[in-house]
């Protein structure tokens, strides 16, 4: 097997499409088979909002992780995925697992097949630390989404109480 020296960043940039495609597939595989098929078809963003939003989010997160410094955009891209997962039938760990999938995938990509490259452990650890940091951010976003849902519930309840109070007052004349 040929080996070549490269930085991890170069490798991830050169193999972006391939890794992204695989990551997207892994993320969809967390869902039932029929759904994986439907959501994998990215032809129309309006009739398949989840698949498209996931793909856009993953692409953005991937690119952000390769930047020297994390920007605010990372949160925006994570939000595209997490806002959806936060309202699906998923536990918090299931909702955020998609980020960890990238770590496993990158390890595999650099170590197997014809893509096999020699990269420094330091590089790999640095990348994984970036993913871990993104995970912390993801946790915040997930909590914000869940809190928003409960906030919406409370405000609906409050509105309903006000409404019933007004109806009762009106009925009492």
């Amino acid at each position, binding site marked *: 097997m040929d080996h070549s020296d490269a930085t991890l960043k170069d490798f991830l940039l050169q193999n972006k499409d391939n890794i992204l495609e695989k990551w997207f597939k892994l993320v969809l*595989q*967390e*869902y*039932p088979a*029929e*759904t994986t098929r*439907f*959501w994998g078809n990215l032809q*129309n*963003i*309006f*009739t*398949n*909002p*989840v698949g498209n*939003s996931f793909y856009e989010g993953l692409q953005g997160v991937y690119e952000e992780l390769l930047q020297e410094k994390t920007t605010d955009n990372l949160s925006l891209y994570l939000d595209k995925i997490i*806002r*959806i997962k936060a*309202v*699906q*039938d998923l536990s918090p*760990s*299931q909702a955020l*697992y998609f980020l960890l999938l990238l770590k*496993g995938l990158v390890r595999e990509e650099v170590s197997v097949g014809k893509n096999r490259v020699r990269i420094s452990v330091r590089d790999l650890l640095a990348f994984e630390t970036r993913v871990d940091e993104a995970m912390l951010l993801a946790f915040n976003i997930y909590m914000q*989404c869940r809190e*928003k*849902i409960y906030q*919406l*519930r409370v*405000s*609906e*309840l409050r*509105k*309903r109480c006000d*409404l019933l109070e*007004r*109806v009762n007052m*009106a*009925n*009492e*004349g």
Partner: protein
Amino acid sequence: MAKLPKPEELAVINYQPPKTHWMDTPVDFRPGTWIYAGKPESLKTVGLPNPRNWSPEDEDWKLPENWKEILLEGLRDRLDRFRSLRVFMDICVRCGACADKCHFYLGSGDPKNMPVLRAELLRSVYRKDFTTAGKILGRLAGARELTYDVVKEWFYYFYQCTECRRCSVFCPYGIDTAEITMIGRELLNLIGVNVDWVVTPVANCYMKGNHLGIQPHGLVDSFEFLQENIYDITGINIDLSFNRKGAEILYVPPSGDVFADPGTFSLMGQLMLFHEIGLDYTLSTYASEGGNFGLFTSNEMMKRLNAKIYAEAKRLGVKWILGGECGHMWRVIHQYMDTMNGPADFLEVPKSPITGTVFEHAKSTKMIHVVEFTADLIKHNKIKLDPSRNAGLKVTFHDSCNPSRAMGLLEEPRYILKHVCDFYEMPEETIKEKTFCCGGGAGLGSDENMEMRMRGGLPRANAVKYVKEKYGVNMLACVCAIDRATLPPLMEYWVPGVQVCGLHELVGNALVMKGEKERTENLRFEPLGTEDDD
């Protein structure tokens, strides 16, 4: 020695759902995805069976002992009475055209939200007990036994369908999947399995004439409050009329608009319009509800509640009926009223007293939507509009499921919007007959169901987000009271910065009234033309 998994294998968690057959995967009642059960008092009020305290989370639902017999007998009875149901049960070839058309499926990815599979929940039981192949071949023929778990599954999924009928638009056989949900709910009602968000409004409407339970004097007070607001904004004291015999028109708005913002603003717009054109109309304090949650209960309940509107029209001796900005009201009026309580021979075909237009399509029901009435006024140049009063608003339009798919109200609202504000259309796949539901119709708009509503409303919100980002849209107009209640939280979660309004709120803002004072505030008491700064 047994083969031990490697550490890295252990670290991989498999999140695939259980590989059990769909028939063997029971429902998990997770909070946020179901609605509280109907209150026993409400069931008693309308004579629904098995009133009791229970919760979907409980293992024991306190069903009648012979629940299975009741359900199967109920299904047999309905198969005999409704040819449509028998056809829908038999005709589906499972082509899958409907599969990815449901907003709940698009948002959740749960295959049982595919309309074909939701219908299969009922069809499988039908096959087992009502078809020869199913009786003999059982599961091989897609048949299954009706069990306690199946009842729970029916409840879970038939209350995850908003009866919006988007899937029906794509069905090559024209199966009305919403009617399958309706029958499913009807059957569940036979054993006392229902949700409070539907049953209590039904009981209120039956006893007091509207879903909110506003009594006649309370209703008058509420309208007077809106009348005062109109005076403060325009300087004009509009007339109100209740239970007036001999009026030309009976006007029936949805009761949500009387109390709940932003519906109140839209109702004010309508009252202002009627005043301006001098319409001879009256409101009934007994049939004070355009909506009909009977539609989400059973056909008998729908008929019972719908009958009140026509009984009042007869009592008051009006010529025809004008319905407010309501959604599912029009599924009832256009598709069921005529065979339930019609034909309304004692009324006249609706004719606009202002333009002379005869609304031929309502020849039998004698009832038209206020949006078609207003569009006709604008078309004939009968009202003066100043769209600059809606300056700062960039408006898009959400086609409510029932007005668009059940009555074909597609162009009229757009025609009005183009005359009163800056209007931007959402993408073609998400509007008109292909419109996406708000996610909270058909009695699913309760707060405890919020997570499910967010899931179901995602496709609609996604399209709004697109026009927000592309054109700067900041207002979502609609013609349905349920939409006006469910879309604001949906926007807050998915597309913050977009508000929701009824269409006639924008008409009311733009309407130049004779003798009005200079307007400085819109119908929300906000300074005119400054919405951009919000």
